[in-house]
């Protein structure tokens, strides 16, 4: 493998019961059919224990995550890590991984999302030059029967880290929660939709280095995903 190759480490979360497809390369040119140079996919349980590592043919354009991980999930959430190598001449910025997921048997619509590109483990570039470990997301204030949470995962190989999750409510009240995550560990941090009668307005996640972070909304009745989105950095 050429030493000129760049690295991209991305992560998403997998739960059973969903069709879940990842676009390994967001194609921009029909003729050249861009592709990765190499790709390993690994899955980790909530405590950071390795569940499986699977070499994937980098010529594939899309990857059916459910098909390769359904036997390993055992009812729990897995953090799925995409460790890819690519040629900068083919991807001047970086290859983009996108995801699509849909709960089987659900009346809900499918969700399409951008997969988190994460530093922490592979000392290479993700195309971001600003601080990207300080992120935010805003919420609709009207009450909906949906439970919000933040999924956070630590992709580092050796370092335990602490994530701070701040929630802001209408009127300015701020609540804080600390989450300690060992290497490859992940957690779902529930966000209270209301505090002292005030609705949730915003969330912030801060960490020493970039974590895999997604904002999720779950159906109040059965807990399936209705919202799955990346957060936004303050520094661009």
């Amino acid at each position, binding site marked *: 493998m050429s030493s000129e190759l760049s690295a991209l480490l991305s992560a998403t979360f997998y739960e059973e019961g969903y*069709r879940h*497809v990842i*676009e390994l390369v*967001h*194609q*921009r*040119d*029909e003729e050249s059919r861009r592709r990765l140079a190499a790709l390993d996919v690994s899955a980790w349980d909530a405590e950071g224990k390795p569940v499986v590592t699977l070499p994937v043919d980098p010529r594939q*354009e*899309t990857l059916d995550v459910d098909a390769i991980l359904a036997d390993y999930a055992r009812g729990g959430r897995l953090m799925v890590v995409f460790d890819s190598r690519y040629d900068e001449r083919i991807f001047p910025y970086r290859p*983009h991984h*996108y995801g*699509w997921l*849909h709960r*089987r*048997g*659900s*009346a*809900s*619509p*499918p*969700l*399409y*999302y*951008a997969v988190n590109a994460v530093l922490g483990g592979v000392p290479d570039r993700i195309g971001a030059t600003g601080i990207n470990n300080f992120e*935010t997301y*805003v*919420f*609709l*204030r*009207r009450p*909906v*029967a*949906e439970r919000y949470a933040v999924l956070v995962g630590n992709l580092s190989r050796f370092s335990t880290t602490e994530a701070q999750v701040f929630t*802001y409510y209408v009127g*300015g009240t701020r609540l804080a929660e600390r989450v300690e995550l060992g290497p490859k560990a992940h957690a779902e941090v529930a966000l209270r939709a209301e505090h002292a009668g005030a609705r949730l*307005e*915003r969330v912030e996640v801060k960490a020493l280095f970039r974590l895999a972070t997604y904002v999720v*909304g779950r*159906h*109040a009745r059965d807990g399936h995903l*209705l*919202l799955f*989105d990346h957060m*936004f*950095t*303050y*520094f*661009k």
Partner: protein
Amino acid sequence: MRRLLRSLARRFLAVRRTPTYYLPWLSRPGLDCALIIANVESRFRPGFSDGPFPVDVVQYDADGATVRRYEVVLGDCTDVVELALQPTPAGCGIVVVRGERLRSDLYVTLANGESYTATHGRGEFVEEYPAAARAALTVLGGALALAGATVAAFARDQYVYADVESRSHVLLMNLSNVTNRIRVAVRAEGRTLGARLIAVPPMGARLFDVGAIGGGGHDGVRRVRLTGNAWFNLYLVGAGPRDLEGPLSLMHVK
């Protein structure tokens, strides 16, 4: 090379590009569409973090006509305003948001009382073609349309997904002042399912069911190639088993 040619063509035609932040909107019975406007990402940016922040919002309908203008003021960089958009019979379109010191991504939300989904807009540009270029595109585009083709100025590739429980619709947004003839070609499993030419009026939008090309019998991943004669973008609209009559999700693409 293609990029260079496009750049030269733009110069030759005297096309102007105006930086613009835009979002899609969508309305259906029982589905509320609202923008979340904030400037929170400017919080740590010197010179951009002191309010108030006046914001102008223009909602364009699917035919490109202005539905309504809104004036919003954010008191400070942590202020959040929810702006309910006006439903129309066409049910989709573009919203353009302008604010001199607005430095945050903005969100468009769909809520049905039980759930809500959100996605962000795009800080890109709108293309303005002078009268002569518009006339040339009208004549040339009209002739090519007879053969189901278009002037291939811009192209996008997108994966979409369909199965018995869900569908993908594409919300096409014409970000220019010329009629944009967009050719949508769909492939699956290595073969072409079909193509269709969709004319989108200036600053207009079209909601297009990708499954309508090639029939509904091809579950799984489809690859869509979109080619237009002027700048455009798209969002994916996810629909469950009740299709557009049920809850929807709205999703940005790269």
